[in-house]
């Protein structure tokens, strides 16, 4: 169900795409639809097949089965040099024997653009990435961040209909990465190109992408906006992969149309909506750490209230994180913004605490 996107007709469509390498299925029945002008991220852990999917779009890999439609045209059999698609490589892949100017001009020369036009276009591109002063340098004379911008300029020079980014910020250090994220989005939006990017960094996907496809073992598990993926994960893997989350396994014990109860090992969890399942079916409850309240004194609530002992406290500046151990040894992660609730300041190791959450906050996962 979640494999398939809700938009049947997109600018870029993949239909039941499969790629097999001998015994490894790198891409497994992937159908996604990407709209014009979107920044679409393929997110997943190492080896989940995101690079392979991107390389199929670029034309470097032939899919074992399935179709790739760009503007309604099946391009699966087109070689890379005949696709209106350009890619920015993870290692940048700048030509070491050419200077920056010639690197950016390379694609334009191949399509036989007149020299005068090439000149304006290259200058425009170097302007865009603020590297005009470096035009005569060789790639190895630039820093990592500058090389990344050259790679971007080169892949945008031919005005591709689709831009592919493979781990665009993967080779930069953390500090530079955060700043470059916004810069990159700014440039992409000013050009107005449709982007498919690959990343294993959820923060990068969250900040840059308009929609995200979470992948695991070659399959797309969920497609949605960053908020949808975070707030309403549809399965256990996605919930666990994106951010921190507490998962409780249990069974459905009450199921009415506007409320339900799920019995977990530590008690009963109340939910403010119906599940529409059968009583006794196994379910998983997912609660984000920041949705959980914590207090040393007993609060004035009587549902979804649990207690335990504080085992660990982590101070992260703007928030603190508590690891609370329940009676049966199960631990729960709770985060609290610092300075908001004064009574929590004095929670320390081995304190007995109460924690609870609203009936609207847990996400119920059926598998």
């Amino acid at each position, binding site marked *: 169900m979640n494999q398939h996107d809700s938009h049947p007709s997109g600018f870029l469509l993949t239909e039941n795409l499969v790629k097999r390498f001998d015994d490894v299925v790198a891409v497994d029945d992937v159908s996604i639809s990407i709209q014009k002008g979107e920044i679409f991220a393929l997110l997943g852990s190492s080896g989940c097949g995101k690079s392979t999917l991107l390389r199929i779009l*670029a034309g470097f890999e032939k899919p074992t089965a399935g179709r790739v439609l760009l503007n309604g045209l099946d391009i699966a059999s087109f*070689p890379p040099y005949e696709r209106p698609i350009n*890619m920015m*490589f993870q290692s940048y*892949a*700048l*030509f070491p024997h050419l200077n920056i100017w010639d690197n950016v001009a*390379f694609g334009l020369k191949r399509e036989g653009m007149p020299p005068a036009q090439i000149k304006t276009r290259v200058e425009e591109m170097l302007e865009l990435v603020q590297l005009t002063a470096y035009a005569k340098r060789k790639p190895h*004379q*630039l820093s990592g961040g500058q090389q990344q911008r050259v790679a971007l300029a080169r892949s945008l020079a031919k005005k591709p209909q689709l831009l592919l980014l493979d781990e665009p910020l993967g080779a930069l250090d953390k500090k530079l990465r955060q700043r470059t994220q916004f810069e990159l989005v700014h440039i992409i939006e000013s050009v107005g190109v449709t982007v498919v990017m690959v990343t294993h960094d959820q923060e990068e996907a969250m900040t840059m992408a308009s929609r995200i496809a979470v992948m695991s073992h070659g399959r797309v598990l969920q497609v949605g906006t960053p908020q949808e993926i975070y707030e309403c994960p549809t399965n256990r893997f996605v919930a666990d992969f994106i951010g921190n989350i507490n998962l409780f396994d249990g069974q459905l014990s009450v199921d009415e149309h506007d409320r339900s109860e799920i019995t977990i090992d530590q008690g009963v969890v109340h939910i403010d909506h119906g599940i529409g399942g059968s009583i006794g079916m196994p379910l998983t409850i997912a609660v984000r750490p920041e949705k959980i309240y914590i207090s040393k004194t007993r609060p004035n609530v009587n549902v979804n209230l649990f207690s335990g002992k504080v085992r660990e406290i982590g101070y992260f500046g703007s928030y603190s994180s508590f690891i609370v151990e329940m009676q049966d040894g199960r631990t729960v992660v709770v985060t609290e913004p610092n300075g908001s609730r004064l009574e929590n300041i004095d929670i320390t190791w081995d304190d007995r605490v109460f924690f609870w959450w609203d009936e609207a906050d847990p996400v119920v996962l059926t598998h």
Partner: protein
Amino acid sequence: MKTSSSQALLRLLQAHFGKLWLLVVYLFLYGPLLFLILFSFNSTRQDAVFTGFSTRWYEALLNDSRLVGGFFLSLKVAVITGTLSTILGTFAAFVLVRYQRFRGRSLFSGLVSAPLVMPEVIIGLSLLLLMVAVQHAIGWPERGATTIVLGHTLLGMAYATVVVAARLREMDRTIEEAAMDLGCRPLQVFFLVTLPNILPSLVAAWMLTFTLSFDDVVISEFLSGPGVTTLPQVIFGYARRGVNPSIYAAATILILTVSTGIIAYSILTMRAQRRRERDAQAAVLAEIRSVEENVGTA
């Protein structure tokens, strides 16, 4: 008095033992060559006594049509061998490095480098047998320059393959994909991106195989025909019939040509090596600078 001086000598020996040893080794290596070069400038036919400086043997050399002919034949053979070996070696290196999985790959890679360790006498003899048989069957090739080139190329190709494959292996393949992504057809990718990036190794391979061919005597001896003799062969023939200072002159020219090739090869590879190191350093420095800038602005 005597004991103190011998003690001093001993001390001197101890202090400079390493240098002395090196000197002995170098004398052993290059003494004969220096001797040969020196005597090529001897004014008389004397073998053991240097009687005075003259260039008469070089003049005699110019009038010796066999030596001059041998020199130009060697030059021609070496140039063609260098070129053929480099081209064929590049193809072989490509197949070895780029096609990781085909039937008989390890056999092929073994066979390509086998001539490196095979005794040259065996190579020469087996080639001679083959060429004679082929000539008998189709009337070609006549024994002479062609067969020598074929023989040298067989050996040279093995060397060229090793040199080019090493460079090809360390080349970043994604730049070829990038070229294709930017609109290059496969052939354009090769000429516009791959070739410029492996060019230093092709030059090195050419010089190495040129040198190999220029001073080879064993294979040439098997494959040359009547009246066709390379410079080393002519020298060899003269030496057998009794030495003559004009051979020294010819040998000096040979040494000069070969060492020019070797020195050029080393300078080229050394320079490439140094450039790579410098580039790596420059990149690291640039990285540090950019990080500093960022820390500064943050």
